[in-house]
């Protein structure tokens, strides 16, 4: 009898602590959304390296919210504690207003620990380290004017800031939303954790989604803003860049940017350290690890835990919808201003610059550059814009980091 009672109690206990009683409708909606994102990541291959872990993290946190719970200490009145326990007390005791309390600790959830690397701003610079190891700044050094396009494409960030302000976001939130237009995942995450951590899930998902959709979003804008003649421009071959120039580039850039915009130093510093690993050619061991295993490990942790910030209660708000719309606007404006400044350069150089390379300035390396190449080839199948577009493309990474530095300084 007592056994049966115990069994029933145990089963009821399991049921009561199960998701069936603890989860709410938002969680179930989020589970559905995460499955849709998994579908997009796997079947449509939209940025799967990030979107798959993000979606799975979102799934986990909505199935089992405690997986993101912070460690905590409960203050149990000493008398209560002693009543329920035998043996010596192993925890610190605090005296508060004459009463004594046992500080009873509880561990945090798995993803909460892994999330600290995001929260403390550690993962995004380390991913930039790996990206630096894989980035060739040659086309940019060869044609430094590309930096103008990399700057132009950031205008979308600031204009979207305006939109966000008028939609009722605070200045800091608006800064984090605007940075979606930078089309640069780690930069967006880095800025958001500092300016508006409560929006991290929405912003990260919007940023990676639009980066995946670059081949769909950009071409209509590019075609709308350019004439057939402009799109047909064949550009001169880039001059070869010497190894010494490539080695000096990361050192010089980090000095300039870190001095003028210290807030961008962690991101730009690690990007350039990685690039120096690559270009110096003398540290192949660590170059290889930084761009492979280290980056992959961080990617797993970052993706999963960023996804896990999107619990139902925080994600299913009107703000998320506004962010998604604003993010798209930021992206489109970035593309448009890149192309428009490309047109200016077309005019200024007497038609030597194909304005299509301007859209690559949003970053989204290397997809945006490929889109420039592809749209260019539709006009003139013999036209190869890829390397020319790589200049604005990597300039866009630097441009986004600079824009991040400005935002952190002005609204942070």
């Amino acid at each position, binding site marked *: 009898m007592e056994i049966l009672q115990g069994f029933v109690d145990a089963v009821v206990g399991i049921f009561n602590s199960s998701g069936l009683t603890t989860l709410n409708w938002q969680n179930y909606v989020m589970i559905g959304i995460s499955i849709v994102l998994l579908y997009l990541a796997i079947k449509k291959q939209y940025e799967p390296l990030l979107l798959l872990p993000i979606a799975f993290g979102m799934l986990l946190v909505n199935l089992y919210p405690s997986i993101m719970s912070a460690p905590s200490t409960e203050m149990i009145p000493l008398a209560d504690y002693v009543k329920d326990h035998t043996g010596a007390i192993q925890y610190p005791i605090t005296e508060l207003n004459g009463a004594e309390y046992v500080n009873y600790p509880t561990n945090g959830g798995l993803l909460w620990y892994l999330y600290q690397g995001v929260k403390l701003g550690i993962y995004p610079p380390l991913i930039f380290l790996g990206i630096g190891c894989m980035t*060739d700044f*040659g086309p*940019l*050094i*060869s044609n*430094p*004017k590309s*930096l*103008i396009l*990399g*700057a132009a494409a*950031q*205008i979308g*960030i*600031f204009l979207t*800031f*305006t939109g966000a*302000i*008028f939609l*009722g*976001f*605070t*200045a*800091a*939130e608006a*800064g984090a939303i605007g940075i979606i237009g930078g089309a640069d995942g780690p930069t967006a995450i880095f800025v958001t954790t*500092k*300016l*508006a*951590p*409560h929006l991290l899930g929405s912003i990260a998902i919007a940023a990676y989604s639009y980066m995946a959709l670059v081949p769909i979003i950009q071409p209509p804008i590019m075609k709308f803003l350019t004439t057939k003649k402009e799109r047909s421009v064949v550009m001169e071959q*880039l*001059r*070869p*860049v*010497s*190894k*010494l*120039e*490539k080695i*000096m580039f990361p050192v*010089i*850039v980090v000095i*300039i*940017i870190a001095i*003028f*915009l210290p807030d961008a130093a962690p991101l730009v510093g690690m990007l350039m350290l990685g690039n120096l690993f690559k270009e110096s*050619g003398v540290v192949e*061991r660590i170059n290889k690890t930084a761009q492979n295993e280290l980056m992959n490990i961080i990617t797993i942790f970052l993706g999963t835990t960023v996804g896990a910030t999107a619990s139902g209660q925080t994600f299913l708000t009107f703000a998320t919808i506004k962010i998604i719309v604003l993010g798209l606007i930021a992206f489109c404006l970035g593309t448009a201003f890149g192309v428009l400044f490309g047109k200016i350069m077309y005019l200024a150089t007497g038609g030597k610059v194909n304005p299509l390379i301007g859209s690559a300035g949003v970053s989204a390396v290397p997809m945006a550059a490929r889109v420039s190449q592809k749209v260019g080839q539709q006009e003139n199948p013999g036209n190869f814009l890829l*390397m020319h577009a790589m200049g604005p493309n990597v*300039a866009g990474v*630097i*441009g986004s980091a*600079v*824009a991040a530095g*400005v*935002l952190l300084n*002005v*609204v*942070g």
Partner: protein
Amino acid sequence: MNLSDVALAAQTAQKESLTLAEKGITSAKVVLTGFVVVFAMLILLIFIIKIYSAIVQKAQSAGSNSKKGKKNKDEKPAEKPAAAPAPVVTASAATDGISDEVVAVISAAVATMYGSSEKARIKSIKKSSDGGRSAWAKAGVLDNTRPF
């Protein structure tokens, strides 16, 4: 206003939201600052890149003229243009099979990876007796150990 304050404010009910005018001013300020600073920084970079590129190119062409034939070997890595086509691989590798070193490299890796549980047939390569590490591989290991 600084970082955490904003975060704090954002997360709580925003009692005192901005007036429309304040919104306009804040926005305009940020757009203007962002536009100017981003362009200023990147244009500054353009000039700096141009200047140091010019210096490097001049130095190298001067260097290569004056030292041509002398330090050729030394200078090569610095002068070689990165964007140049790379048609270079000599045919030697294809004609003379593979040098012992290459063979050794490969087998060492295989052994390292698959250890002794390996049953696959490797035709052309024999495991060296001491733990699968050839003399050549050892040298590589030493090179890597060196800096620590």
